[in-house]
């Protein structure tokens, strides 16, 4: 899959400016084009084939662990609509994801901006240490400290508790990525804004945020996706089923002996995936979805 891009680089020749080497170029360009399309098809195939199951199983009346042409049914959806936790859990996931996403984006943007523009003592070392510590806290071994912390703060069975704990774990990576991002934006605009008397928060809001918007969007989508898939923290901290997010409800579709009910699981997987996909499409069409998008040549 890691084909060196050597053969495909011929396609750079499509720009004007190298017509002089035309003779040999024809063949090279053809080779390049063929290589380009082969590569793209392989990448597309690699990334789409695993998704087939999600497109077929939910509509199958006897789904198995295989992607096959379904004998079409919508019964699975009906069963889920009757499950009183299923749809509500998507709403809960949305609350948790939106809350965490907003908290992470705001806090990390402010911190990353300050860290990028002002040299605070020990800044880099601090960032690395926090990044490393985040790996402990997201693991299983930290479950007792996290639980007891939430318990002492009276955050058990509280969605706010889940949001705070998850944000704590995501922030270091978010700050790290965004700081890189802010480092890459020009300061000249900020200087001009400052000359016109804008306060730092105004500069941040009207100058910096528009410049790094794609980066913020990326962090938002990233943290939402992390929360959306997180099972352990909401499971440990929440008690009322009315507050459970989809990741927790997904685990309920098993029998007493641990056998999965594939009909419900596949259907729920689809419902569970749709919101993140929609969010991604929305974000990517509105803000663009890449790093360093602020500077285009």
């Amino acid at each position: 899959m890691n084909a060196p891009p050597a053969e495909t680089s011929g396609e750079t020749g499509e720009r004007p400016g190298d017509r002089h080497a035309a003779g040999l170029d024809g063949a090279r360009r053809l080779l390049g084009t063929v290589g380009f399309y082969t590569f793209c098809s392989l990448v597309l195939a690699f990334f789409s084939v695993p998704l087939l199951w999600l497109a077929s199983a939910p509509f199958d009346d006897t789904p198995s662990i295989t992607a096959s042409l379904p004998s079409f049914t919508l019964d699975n959806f009906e069963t889920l609509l009757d499950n009183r936790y299923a749809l509500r859990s998507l709403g809960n996931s949305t609350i948790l994801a939106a809350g965490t996403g907003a908290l992470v984006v705001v806090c990390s943007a402010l911190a990353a901006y300050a860290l990028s523009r002002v040299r605070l003592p020990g800044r880099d070392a601090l960032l690395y240490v926090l990044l490393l510590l985040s790996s402990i806290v997201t693991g299983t071994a930290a479950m007792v400290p996290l639980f007891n912390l939430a318990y002492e703060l009276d955050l058990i069975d509280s969605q706010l508790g889940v949001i705070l704990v998850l944000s704590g774990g995501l922030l270091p990576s978010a700050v790290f990525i965004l700081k890189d991002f802010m480092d890459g934006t020009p300061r000249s605009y900020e200087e001009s804004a400052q000359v016109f008397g804008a306060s730092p928060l105004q500069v941040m809001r009207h100058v910096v945020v528009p410049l790094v918007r794609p980066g913020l969007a990326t962090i938002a989508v990233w943290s939402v996706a992390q929360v959306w898939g997180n099972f352990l923290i909401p499971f440990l901290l929440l008690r009322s089923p009315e507050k459970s997010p989809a990741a927790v409800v997904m685990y309920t579709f098993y029998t007493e002996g641990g056998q999965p009910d594939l009909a419900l699981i596949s259907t729920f997987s689809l419902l569970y995936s749709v919101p993140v996909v929609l969010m991604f499409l929305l974000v990517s069409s509105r803000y663009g979805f890449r790093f360093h998008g602020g500077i285009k040549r």
Partner: protein
Amino acid sequence: MATSPPDPTLPAGEERAGRGERPERDAAGLGRARAAAFVVPALLLIAAFLVFPALWTIYLGLTDYRLTGLAAVDPQVVGLDNFERALDDDGFTNSLGLTLQFVVGSAVIGQAGLGFAIAWVLRNRRGFGRRLIEAMVLLAWILPSSVIAFLWIALLDRDDGTLNALLSTPGTAWLLEHPMLSIVVFNIWRGTAFSMMLYAAALGNVPPSHLETARLAGASSPQQLRDVVFPRIRGHVLTNLLLISLWTFNDFTPFLLTGGGPEDRTEIMPVFIYRTALFGGELGFGAAISVLMLLINLVIAVVYVRLLRRRKDPA
């Protein structure tokens, strides 16, 4: 920290590769006090919900704490016993080796390589094709892991998995016969998006005129990459490798695919900890392994920083 951002105020081509020497100007007039105020919300959250529980976990690593049984009521501090035991434990060394394979194979080579390749190939493309490819790659990144696990089990199933149907290799139990390869490929699929996006952004900062010049001077593609592209994206390579290595090191998702098996052949570190802490109930020991994992991550981070920084200096 080691990025090489472009500066549009300078004409293209005169950008400096590094900005290490330049003192950072306080362009927004933040001042230290305001800067600190900007950092405080994040730091408070991190201090309360990250640093504090992390330190607590490190402390647990020094005890024989369990969630049930006698050790739950009266945990004893056992000092470094847990660490000694871990280093003596075949299960630990086995899982460390597997984790390194997993990180190098799926993150450093796989995700970074494929992500770069996609970004490079698509760098001058616009339009539907590029958006489609990017969307598919990103989809793999944002779907919940419990869903993803089912997708891959369906793909790799022995009896009627999609892959066996496509390759006409009926009866091949991929997850049993090639367990490590399976989860490595799985993780490449899962995480390439981040590298792709980061490199796409980085390549956007390489002035096309430079590549042009190099090409006209007869540089081959690998030479262009080495001499023109790499120096300008070195900082991004560092950020990328650092983050994806760390994330991959802590990735628990393969457990959903293989359960750590067959035997212990895919029992990577997070799975080992999960089994120790949750199934064995040995939270103290599990915490100690987490700390060891942190130290290994630290070594990896230092290596990356050294490697990429040293090579920058001569430039």
